[in-house]
């Protein structure tokens, strides 16, 4: 039998999933806009960010209401606390996608410095991580959540690679500086998105196992 509390937690989970879909979409669209120099798509990303913002507020309010009116305990309590924090990470991912979209608008109409390979790859990894982290939550699979955290290293490596490559462009030809800096910003935004997904995976482990694995790496 599902209790009323469980029904309410399920409703929160659906909203967080809805937000995840929106965050995934906004990463994908902003990268697409970068790749194809598509300013209209980039503007769409900027407009749609408000959906994430309003869901963030809604989910926060729902979590507060459940905390105060249902007094969840144990796994239910950990679920609400995890969702409250995951909510913030998802909203930040939305903001970072709009930063990428901003760069796409700035670079629109300028000849490409180089074909984009690593940046779309970073985006793909981040999207894959985000998809899987929600399977981990649904299936209550802490192993999968931990594995996702490891994948963040691939994004970090690619970020350093992009940085080094663009640095050499700038050193060779100072005219490329503003363009290259734009791309570095985009890579940095994707690197930050990876960090937020890592946070989400850590909260997932906390929800599933009740263990706080933050800052335990070293």
């Amino acid at each position, binding site marked *: 039998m599902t209790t009323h509390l469980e029904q309410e937690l399920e409703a929160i989970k659906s909203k967080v999933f809805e937000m995840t879909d929106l965050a995934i979409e906004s990463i994908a669209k902003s990268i697409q806009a970068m790749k194809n120099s598509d300013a209209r798509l980039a503007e769409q990303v900027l407009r749609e960010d408000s959906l994430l913002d309003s869901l963030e507020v809604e989910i926060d309010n729902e979590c*507060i*209401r459940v905390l105060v009116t249902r007094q969840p305990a144990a796994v239910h309590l950990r679920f609400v606390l995890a969702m409250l924090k995951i909510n913030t990470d998802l909203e930040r991912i939305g903001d970072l996608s709009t930063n990428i979209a901003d760069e796409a608008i700035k670079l629109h109409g300028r000849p490409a410095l180089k074909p984009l390979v690593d940046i779309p790859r970073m985006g793909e990894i981040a999207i894959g991580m985000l998809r899987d982290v929600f399977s981990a939550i649904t299936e209550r699979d802490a192993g999968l959540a931990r594995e996702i955290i490891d994948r963040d290293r691939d994004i970090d490596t690619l970020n350093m690679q992009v940085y080094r490559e663009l640095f050499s462009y700038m050193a060779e030809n100072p005219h490329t500086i503003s363009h290259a800096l734009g791309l570095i910003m985009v890579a940095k935004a994707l690197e930050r998105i990876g960090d937020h997904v890592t946070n989400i995976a850590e909260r997932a482990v906390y929800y599933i196992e009740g263990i706080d694995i933050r800052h335990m790496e070293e």
Partner: protein
Amino acid sequence: MAEKIKVDKLTFYYGATPAIKNITLTVEGNTVLALIGPSGCGKSTFLRCINRMNDIIPNTRAEGDICIDGKSIYNPKFNVTGLRRRVGMVFQKSNPFPKSIFDNIAYGLKINGMTDRYEIESTVEKSLKSTALWDEVKGRLDESALGLSGGQQQRLCIARTIAVQPEVILMDEPASALDTISTQKIEELIQDLKKNYTIIIVTHNMQQAARVSDMTAFFYMGDLIEISSTGKIFTRPDMEMTENYITGKFG
């Protein structure tokens, strides 16, 4: 949502002393209203005004009015027996009749004029199912209700109340004598019942009020200090006195 109960400037006196003073509030249909406040604040008195249970106490009187579906229940021509069928009550201590489980529910049906055996049986079953008691007692309906556990007895009393299809259910600390699991069952039940009934519950347990109700009213020394949505009362009440009470500074 439609307004089910409207209380207008209700003052109730025991002798010359007002136990509740100038209470005005409305309760919408199919919602749960929780009444909270320290002992002696008038919440039970208020509850009992809604089905005129206080009438039987000598030397008492009410001023002001209560309307259910727009009709004044304090109108001298109002049928009080009919009122108590429409407004059922569940008490703190479960009080099953010393009869079989079946007869506890069938009794109310019979005195309300139900004679068809099949109809009685199906109503008993339906009432027990809606209080989640059916699976626990279906094999022993003819055994004494006094053999049930405290939690089961209380759910039987709720089943007995809803069998006669009231519109409003008043509950006076229905779970205060029960253990955690039974309490949880009663709380779940209250949430389920509000689909069909309007419920007003008095509770000493603030967390319980927060868990089960849509609206919460805070009473203090016979005054209604604040009434608002439960979410609001427990996160940002308007009155400092409410805040002090729910944060445990007094009471």
